[in-house]
């Protein structure tokens, strides 16, 4: 039930967000997570309060699955003062440190080492924190992420590397970009790696549960390759540009395994309807809150630039 609620919430949030991009309420566009919801849902479900996550440019799903308030996320996308980041971050930087969400990151491959450092530090500070860090198939070619695998393996850091393999880095097919194999890359660093059906929230949850256990008990990192498909554009700019890198057949084949339907089919129709209604009500309310929220004051444009504000001149 919870898994369904999560995937449904993400799906509907994203569909509405795409609308708000079209209507101009969200400036700069978004990278829709539509189609990949099972991964966020399945990975975040077994995490506990003291755990932390890092996210990506395609981060709304992770943030919602980790429990962030949809109204505050939406307000962030709209650049409002009530946003998670007070409107300073936008889609690619949504963070909620109170929930252990150390931020989406707009630089592909950057967050893996940040998550590794955070997990190591929490452990050193006596907490039993586990970190989950999300990234795409494209990030597998970023040296800094591969370096992070090494640190995590060497120091047995409680971090779970979650690769969302949706087959493309923007327009670049994974086969043209990743030589060898994704899981072998993690294994080469001595990190146990599995490939999971990233369209099925329960499969993802299952694999994550094992990984969390390993991490929590001091056995170090695990790598999960979650195979998935991005149903929508890489970024909403693609709705205007005509980029032809995926065939319509491929897209409909990809869409045929819809995580919302896969998980939804496990519920009784009436239960599902209840959840759907709940989600809709929540998002209706979120939209009202977000749209009604104040814009930040331009005079405060540099607030938060330094933790010690005396620097500004």
């Amino acid at each position: 039930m919870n898994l369904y609620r999560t995937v449904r919430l993400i799906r509907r949030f994203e569909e509405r967000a795409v609308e708000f991009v079209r209507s101009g309420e969200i400036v700069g566009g978004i990278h829709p997570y539509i189609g990949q919801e099972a991964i966020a849902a399945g990975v975040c479900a077994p995490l506990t309060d003291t755990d932390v996550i890092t996210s990506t440019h395609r981060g709304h799903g992770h943030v919602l699955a980790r429990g962030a308030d949809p109204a505050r996320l939406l307000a962030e996308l709209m650049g409002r003062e009530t946003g998670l980041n007070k409107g300073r971050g936008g889609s690619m930087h949504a963070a909620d440190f109170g929930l252990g969400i150390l931020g989406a990151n707009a630089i592909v491959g950057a967050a893996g080492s940040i998550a590794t450092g955070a997990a190591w530090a929490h452990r050193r500070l006596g907490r039993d924190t586990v970190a989950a860090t999300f990234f795409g198939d494209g990030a597998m070619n970023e040296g800094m992420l591969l370096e992070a695998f090494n640190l995590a393996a060497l120091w047995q850091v409680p971090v779970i590397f979650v690769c969302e393999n949706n087959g493309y880095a923007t327009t670049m097919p994974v086969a043209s970009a990743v030589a060898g194999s994704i899981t072998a890359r993690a294994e080469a660093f001595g990190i146990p790696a599995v490939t999971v059906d990233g369209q099925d929230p329960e499969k993802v949850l299952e694999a994550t549960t094992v990984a969390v256990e390993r991490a929590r008990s001091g056995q170090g990192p695990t790598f999960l390759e979650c195979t998935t498909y991005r149903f929508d554009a890489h970024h909403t700019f693609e709705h205007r540009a005509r980029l032809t890198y995926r065939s319509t057949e491929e897209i409909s084949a990809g869409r045929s395994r819809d995580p919302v339907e896969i998980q939804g089919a496990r519920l009784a129709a009436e239960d599902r309807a209840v959840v759907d209604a709940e989600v809709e009500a929540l998002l209706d309310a979120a939209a009202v809150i977000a749209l009604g929220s104040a814009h930040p004051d331009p005079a405060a444009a540099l607030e938060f630039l330094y933790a010690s504000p005396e620097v500004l001149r």
Partner: protein
Amino acid sequence: MPKLSYLKALNRALGDELERDPTVFVLGEDIRAAASNVTAGLFARFGPDRVLDTPLSEQAFTNFATGAALAGMRPVIEFQIPSLLFLVFEQIANQAHKFSLMTGGQCKVPVTYVVPGSGSRTGWAGQHSDHPYTLFAHVGVKTVVPATPADAYGLLISAIRDDDPVVFFAPSGALGVRDDVDFSTLAPVPLGVGRVVRGGDDVTVVALGHLVQDALAAADELAGLGISVEVFDPRTVYPLDVEGLAASAAKTRRLVVIDDSNRTSGFAAEILAIAAERFDLDAPPRRVTRPDGAVLPFALALDRAVQPGRDQLVTAIHAVLEEQ
């Protein structure tokens, strides 16, 4: 006369050089599909060996270009985001730039690094809104920031033909600019030669890239008040056309710089430093810049507040005209 957009000028320059010189090739992310439009049509025209889609491995492909240059080719790299230049700063400043001297002149590294969409991108926020031309000028890598379609064309041609590494910044705010252009006049524009975009007598405004438009708008506005503004566009940040700048300042004896870098040790700081050393001005010069340490906030009004703009420029011009 036909209209040429800045973006199309870049595309045309690339196509022309690929056509002319078989050692030129382009590499980068999503350039086959031409996600940024800069390489539109080039893959179909020149094929996979000349238009090379790379994985997300910026450091390696930047050094790869250096290696290809050492072997005699002229690579052009497209970077999707300005901050990717931070990721490859070592590869440009410490490798490509240094090879010639370190090897005692045994080789050259003619690589061009193109950033289409530098500066604020309206809603792309903190990590995608940098405009880091000062960094490269400071380390001595040739750095260009063209303002117009014709300059974008001509400077890209020159950058590709130059025997040293050149970083080419195409500001987001300029990509949409369209000008009437007689295509037969499109020609290489030499690096290091500035241009008086608008002549004037009372004050020199130095502006680069998209800010040239703001400078022209400010000049128009002030013309109504009887103030005659000269707009000088150095076009190349390094090497800088110091003589062109000096000539303009000698005429107007007042100077304002508008610069989309941070204030401390930015491009504008260099102009003011040169002014302090060499120019005889009737009033202290001024600079209009991003604030120190600027990180562009997401919310649009905040993003705008952190960028230097026309209003601040007009205020600064009034200030230098009132002071002595």
